């Protein structure tokens, strides 16, 4: 346990392991790359991360296969398991590591998701976390009963109310609800299972949970939106914020921003951990690592990938342009904003973005492919294992992050080298655990407060 009061104690590093996802960071063409769906891949990835004493395994989720120019997008890895089902299965082949899944507050209902998350928390011995996402567009809605029913400005309002109702279900069984006295024949304590009644803006719910809350009560809550509303939501409700701000100065600004929102919600700095996503490239020397990073970036950005990347901003077909040539002189099509479906990052002002990119490409003499590599490659951690460990430590000590979500780029062996070489360096520096505490929950690993925010704390009062 870290003791926040001891000023000289070095701030501890938290690491999460991002299962390689469905975008071009994942190198499916690498000869060592294996199935994206076979359970053996999940088993290896999770067990390796556990060998490296990571806080948690992280799984993203997208509820529709991505499309580009009206067709299924073919160039990236596609296909994933159902988040809850795979978390339950991974729980059976791991013992200590946390298991965080991305699940929508829009296309689920609190009663059912609370039941599923509580089940997973029971099955894993208190190791479950929920990355709450709020996408509500019509593209994803088309796979669900209600379609696109939620206004965009309501997405976090619904998410907050969702969590409130879920909390009520997680704490609705009294701690001593199950008596199970065989002799007297009493199974439940009187009033042991409370009825949840909630009438709000988004939910109108009356019911009883089919199970007591899991060992954590409320699973660990992770948030990954970047808007002001998203940051406020995280500051009020989340234990971890998953960000894309991995460049040092930008990361420090983001860190200060979200931590600065905490006092307004009566929370202290350590109650919300900031973990940016980051890739890595390792070598015996910095030069070797940089060479490797270049190779990875090239492999991640095929000509077709680079053209598709530009098409997302230009909103039109650009396949006639040479990826190794200059940027298209024509302007974006204002009507083409929805050219890519199923990913978050559509440019707000395509014309301005295109102009800026053209300017940069001209100034730095970059081809289309080189520009895309410069824009997207996120190998923040490049160097020898000792250098990478020092860089992680610097981020944490200087309050640019509380650690990282490490993104492996091959599946399932992509984090093996990191665990073999960087983890011992972090341990050597005294900023990383050397073992898991027996019986620790994910909340314990992260150093998050509480059990349920309403459950046991309310009962103590």
């Amino acid at each position: 346990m870290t003791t926040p009061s001891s000023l000289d104690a070095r701030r501890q590093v938290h690491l999460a392991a991002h299962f390689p996802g469905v975008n071009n960071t994942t190198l499916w063409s690498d000869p060592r790359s294996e199935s994206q769906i076979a359970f053996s891949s999940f088993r290896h990835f999770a067990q390796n991360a556990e060998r490296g004493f990571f806080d948690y395994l992280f799984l993203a989720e997208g509820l529709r296969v991505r499309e580009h120019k009206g067709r299924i997008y073919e160039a990236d890895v596609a296909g994933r398991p159902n988040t809850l089902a795979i978390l339950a299965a991974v729980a059976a082949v791991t013992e200590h590591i946390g298991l965080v899944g991305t699940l929508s507050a829009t296309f689920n209902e609190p009663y059912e998701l609370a039941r599923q998350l509580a089940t997973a928390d029971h099955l894993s011995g208190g190791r479950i976390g929920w990355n709450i996402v709020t996408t509500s567009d019509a593209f994803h809605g088309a796979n669900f009963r209600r379609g696109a029913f939620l206004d965009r400005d309501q997405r976090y309002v619904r998410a907050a109310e969702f969590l409130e109702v879920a909390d009520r279900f997680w704490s609705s069984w009294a701690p001593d609800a199950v008596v199970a006295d065989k002799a007297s024949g009493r199974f439940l304590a009187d009033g042991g299972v409370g009825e949840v009644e909630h009438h709000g803006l988004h939910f109108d719910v009356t019911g009883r949970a089919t199970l007591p809350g899991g060992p954590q009560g409320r699973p660990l809550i992770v948030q990954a939106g970047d808007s002001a509303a998203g940051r406020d939501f995280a500051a009020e409700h989340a234990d971890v914020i998953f960000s894309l701000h991995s460049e040092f100065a930008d990361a420090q600004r983001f860190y200060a921003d979200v931590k600065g929102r905490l006092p307004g919600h009566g929370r202290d700095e350590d109650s919300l951990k900031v973990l940016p996503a980051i890739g890595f490239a390792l070598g015996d020397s910095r030069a070797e690592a940089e060479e490797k990073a270049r190779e990875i970036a090239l492999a991640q950005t095929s000509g077709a990938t680079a053209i598709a990347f530009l098409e997302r901003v230009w909103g039109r077909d650009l396949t006639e342009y040479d990826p190794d040539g200059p940027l298209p002189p024509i302007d974006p099509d204002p009507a083409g904003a929805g050219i890519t479906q199923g990913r978050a990052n559509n440019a707000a002002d395509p014309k301005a973005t295109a102009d800026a990119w053209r300017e940069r490409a001209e100034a730095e003499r970059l081809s289309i492919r080189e520009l895309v590599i410069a824009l997207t490659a996120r190998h923040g951690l490049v160097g020898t294992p000792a250098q990478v460990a020092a860089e992680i430590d610097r981020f944490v000590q200087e309050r640019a992050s509380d650690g990282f979500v490490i993104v492996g780029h091959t599946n399932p062996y992509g984090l093996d080298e990191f665990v073999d070489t960087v983890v011992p360096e972090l341990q050597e520096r005294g900023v990383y655990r050397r073992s898991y505490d027996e019986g620790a929950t994910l909340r314990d690993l992260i150093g998050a407060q509480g059990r349920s925010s309403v459950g046991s704390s309310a009962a103590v009062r």
Partner: protein
Amino acid sequence: MTRNLHLAVALEGTGWHPASWREPAARPTEIFTPGYWLDLVRAAEAGGVDFVTIEDSFGLQSSRFGAADDRVDQLRGRLDALLIASYVAPRISRIGLVPTVTTTHTEPFHVATALQTLDHVSEGRAGWQPRISASPDDAASVGRRTVPALDLEAYRRGEGQAIVHELFDEAGEVVDAVRRVWDSWEDDAIVRDVDSGRFLDGEKVHYTEFEGRYVRIKGASITPRSPQGQPPVIALAHATVPFEFAAAHADAVCITPHTPEQLREILAEVHDAEARLRPTSLPPLLVYADLVVLLEDNAEDAAAALERLDDQAGDTLASDALVVASTPAALVERLREGQRLGLDGFRLRPARLPADLDTITRSVVPALEQAGLRAPAPDGVAPGTAPRTLRDTLGLERPANLFTHQPALRDSEVSA
């Protein structure tokens, strides 16, 4: 040789008798722990059972039909069955896993991908027991629609049939939609073609395009087609509407005859429904009978054990399925007779867990093998061969993809 009699065990709480939790061997405080379920499934697997169903209900158990009770003397509470199955899947190797997943308030898209995932994780041993939620309480716990209260006596007089009709119509749509989602990726959709830079062949990923009265799903699954393609769908049915649901949508139906005459009548009704409603995409419907079993070495002990449990429960055991409190030998005779009358198998509901499951695996399965009703379960997987799937075990061929002979449906391409 006669066809292998299929044998399933239905896992529910501490057993199907409401007083089972008070038995000395019962582990009622462990029903929320993973080890409890792993032990039960492993015992069933070691004993040669073909598959287990893991029972579930959308809402808390109740002794009242379609409404909550406030009883504190019976076991209450359960984990989500699909997640129990997902948890045990990596740690077992032969037995089929068939969780109950409800259709009324759940999202068919999530149901589809969850079952596909169970099939991937179990390497082809997933199945699905769909079930409706007919209670107003279940509906209120979600709060998106209301289901009128159903009174069992009124229902038996023929009232409230419309609601049940509607819930089963919807369940039928859900199963159809789910099957389309399961098939939306062809088996070879993932091409990993380095030369063309394509991970996926988009022509082999199909829009589900399901448009029903209750369910609409536009897109393909997010999960690639699973080892079995379509995990077997196994439905419990007691009356005409669910018989028709099973005939039109399921791979197997579990029925609840109490006498040989009833068995003949139900079989005739099921086969009639099959003749009228079975789509050509489905193989002949397998028919199993459910039995609640309480087994002791001699019949008097079994009767006494049941009486003791009934006394503790304060009522005689009321069950949709026939209660057989008897010896393993007498049970085997019933199973033989059932097979002779046309059943493909049985699903046994142990009155007491783990006691009656232990007797099934220790005595009933070997006796069935000795009687030539079942071949001994094959051990493990021969090197170089695909693992035996649940469909293999049940004699169901791997289904052709529903989309294979249809051109891909696409939105019009965005022009340059």
